[in-house]
């Protein structure tokens, strides 16, 4: 949802400013590439985590007016407001509140939900599997479909062949990128659940109820990544080293799978990290269309109820998932193309 149409934006995000990261192994010369890489990435991950913690902490103090009044609602009694102020720790100075917040995080204590009077961790524990299931399946489906599709189109249209395929591929993927995920999802419901009556429209009761949410979640990222792969494929096919491989007269499968694929994966995965992390945002939307009992549905309810501990907890969890996803992409990148270990493309 968040990043679909922005191929330009994504590519540009990772075209590092010239000179900014020159001299790949400078400074860490004595370490093995992976050790230096690990060191740098740990710094990046730490920064991301700190940012996440700080931002979620400031959510409550930043609420306009008196947060306690905002939480309690307009018709709350003074005692109720005071009780909430106490439970949020709002009586303490800001820095003590922050220390308390961080300390609680370290012990895994995310607080108590206002609405359900259960611990936030238990709410997350029951909801996370649903979101994880949806997001993980979506990511797998996306990667399995988009990369081969993009490559095949890239290979078939190389050197300006099959103009019609190029144009129709561009139009089709562009269209699905421009349509919001919730519209696609709603139309899926209309077509498959209401008109054809073949799949359930909502809920997570049966295995078949997974199909529409996963499809709705994956279509846009599939199109985004397939476009990136298609563009990268045509770039890689024109490279000198592919001419070298062609000069060795390798069979097509070996030429494309072994010589082209790893090289086009570098850029693809760099961009895919963002798109895949964006699928976590997409899952929030999709869960609301299909009434899927995951974190996305929960956070929307929590925001409407001003249930701040739950909001904080879910954003922390989703943020951590995004960090892990990015880290995973970077590790895979390092394995596929050791040049990225030297810096340059790593991010986060």
């Amino acid at each position, binding site marked *: *949802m968040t*990043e679909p*149409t922005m191929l330009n934006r994504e590519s540009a995000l990772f075209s590092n400013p010239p000179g900014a990261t020159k001299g790949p192994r400078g400074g860490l010369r004595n370490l093995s590439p992976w050790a230096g890489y690990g060191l740098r990435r740990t710094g*990046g991950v730490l920064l991301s985590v700190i940012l996440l913690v700080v931002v979620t902490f400031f959510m409550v103090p930043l609420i306009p007016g008196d947060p306690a009044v905002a939480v309690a609602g307009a018709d709350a009694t003074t005692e109720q407001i005071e009780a909430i102020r106490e439970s949020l720790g709002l009586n303490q100075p800001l820095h003590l509140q922050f220390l308390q917040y961080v300390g609680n995080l370290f012990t895994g204590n995310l607080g108590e939900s206002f609405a359900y009077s259960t611990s936030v961790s238990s709410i997350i524990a029951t909801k996370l599997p649903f979101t994880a299931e949806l997001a993980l399946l979506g990511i797998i489906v996306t990667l399995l479909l988009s990369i081969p599709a993009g490559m095949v189109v890239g290979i078939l249209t190389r*050197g300006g062949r099959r103009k019609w395929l190029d144009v129709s591929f561009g139009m089709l993927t562009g269209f699905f990128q421009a349509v*919001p995920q919730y519209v696609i999802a*709603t139309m899926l419901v209309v077509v498959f659940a209401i008109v054809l009556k073949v799949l359930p429209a909502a809920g997570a009761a049966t295995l078949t109820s997974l199909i529409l949410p996963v499809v709705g979640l994956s279509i846009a990222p599939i199109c985004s990544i397939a476009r990136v792969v298609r563009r990268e494929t045509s770039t890689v096919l024109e490279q000198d080293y592919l001419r070298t491989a062609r000069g060795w007269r390798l069979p097509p499968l*070996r030429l494309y799978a072994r010589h082209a694929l790893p090289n086009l994966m570098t850029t693809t995965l760099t961009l895919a990290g963002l798109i895949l992390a964006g699928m976590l945002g997409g899952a*929030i939307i999709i869960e609301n269309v299909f009434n899927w009992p995951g974190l996305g549905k929960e956070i929307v309810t929590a925001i409407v109820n001003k249930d701040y501990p739950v909001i904080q907890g879910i954003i922390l969890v*989703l943020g951590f998932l995004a960090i892990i996803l990015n880290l995973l992409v970077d590790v895979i990148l390092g394995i596929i193309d050791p040049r990225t270990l030297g810096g340059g493309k790593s991010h986060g």
Partner: protein
Amino acid sequence: MAETTRTKRHFRWTTGLIIGIALMSVMILIGLLAPLFLSEAAEKLTANASQGPSSAHWLGTDDFGRDVLARSLVATRLTLVMTAATTAISVVGGVLIGTFIWLAPPRIRNAVLRVIDAAVAYPSLIFALLIAAILGQGAWSAVLAIAIASIPAFARLTANMAASISQRNYVSTARLLGVPGPRIITRHLLPNMAEPLLVLTATVFATTLIELSSLSFIGLGVQNPEYDFGRLLNEALVNIYSQPLQAVMPSIMITIAGLSAMLIGDGLAAATDPRGGRKFGSVKAASELPASMRADREALVEVDNLTVLTPNGVPLVKGVSLSIHAGEVVGLVGESGSGKSLTAMSIAGLLPEELTVRAHSMRLGELDLLKKNDPRTLATSIGLVYQDPGTSFNPALRIGSQLTEVSRIHLKQSGKTSFTRMVKALADIRITQPELRMKQHPHELSGGMLQRAMIASTLVTDPRLIIADEPTTALDVTVQADVLRQFRTINREMGTAMLFISHDIGVVQALCDKVIVMNGGKILERLTGAQLAAGDVKHPYTKALLAATPSIAERKTELVAVRAEDFTFDEITDDALGPVQAGTVQPETERLQP
């Protein structure tokens, strides 16, 4: 993206851009007019609730008897206004941060960039939800939420562009002259980023449109009684079984709005980055071409009247004939664009597919090169060495697996056998630590080492012909000599025929038995190595080439002379410069010794 245009180009109106602008204009018109005429039908509660399509209500009515079509049209205004406001805030905020950090001290700039990087890694919708939770629900808090959440990405992009521009000469000059920072931004940075920024703004418009309406859709954006497309669809979802039509119109409207914004973005991008289409051709034996007198039946390689055409029919190589005998080294000389590489790559069968190749005949031994040949035969009979060893190796694969590829695939050797053979071949050409090299990646080896490894790898299949396309051009002069020596050794010891392409007549004369001078896709002169060495050339073009290129021997003396000066005279005061130069050159000179 980061590149900005230096020359003024004509604005290219693509179909997509025109359609996009037309659709967007219609949307804006609807946004302006619909609320004036349709507000009554869209907002007045009537008794005709949840009706199907009728002549009075084309798409039926909703729960409260309001006209669905009218509501969809009236919602356009709020949607567009909100999207425009969001885009404006995130673009202005992003550009301000992205440009002003270039005025900050490097330490602060790097810190800010790192924080931005960390923020970009999160899905912006998650941040938007957080901000929506702080500000509460409503149209304008949604605008702020999405805008603030989009700022990091836009700031990153602007920073990238500003980085590349701020390194240009005129900006550094302006800085040195003491032009104040904000003035550098308004005078130099922003005008040069205008084009890509415009494209990005259009794309950001498309995404914020989607994100804003998503927020409304999940119930956290626009609240009753206001409505935008997302809110309408949210209401429609409740009645999706009874009134599926209610979901259709807002879906269509949001799709059109999103598509037009994207078409405008893509169109603007295309307008600033023109790229031509290409066609492809095929290999044909053209019988209408007359047989050349020069073709030589006895030769190992025989090319008779070779023509290479572009898809538009422009000839790039115009009737070239040449022959290479077994054990002979033939040099093909000419400046870039003379058709020498095209000729060589036609023989290798590796021309870009859009080019058409015609010849009366083209063969290697009994192999007809105009036909489609068995890949194994081709791979083992023709060895290829390319110009730039830095780019002709696959950066993602280990050296060893690349060098042994032909042995393993075409000679069906086991991984172990081919590895040991290749290690020996590398050791033979005095590459140090051959086993380690085999396990390394190309970026870990020097260009000279890569090129010599490439040459060594062509030998393990015992090819009949080696085609070397400017194999020394990308190398340092001293490494050039080394590589040339390797070619000469191969030819002397193994008797392999070679086609050696170079723009450098000096390189060619050191190595070749026969030299063919090409220009404009035609052969101008054929010489023997001896004739060339003696300066016995007739064509003025060849004379010019000879005059323009100092021979390798001359260049070596030049180099030595320069270095000798460095050490004999004490005029060079810059200490930093001297040792560095000596350091880079010395390892190569050591290799020259044996």
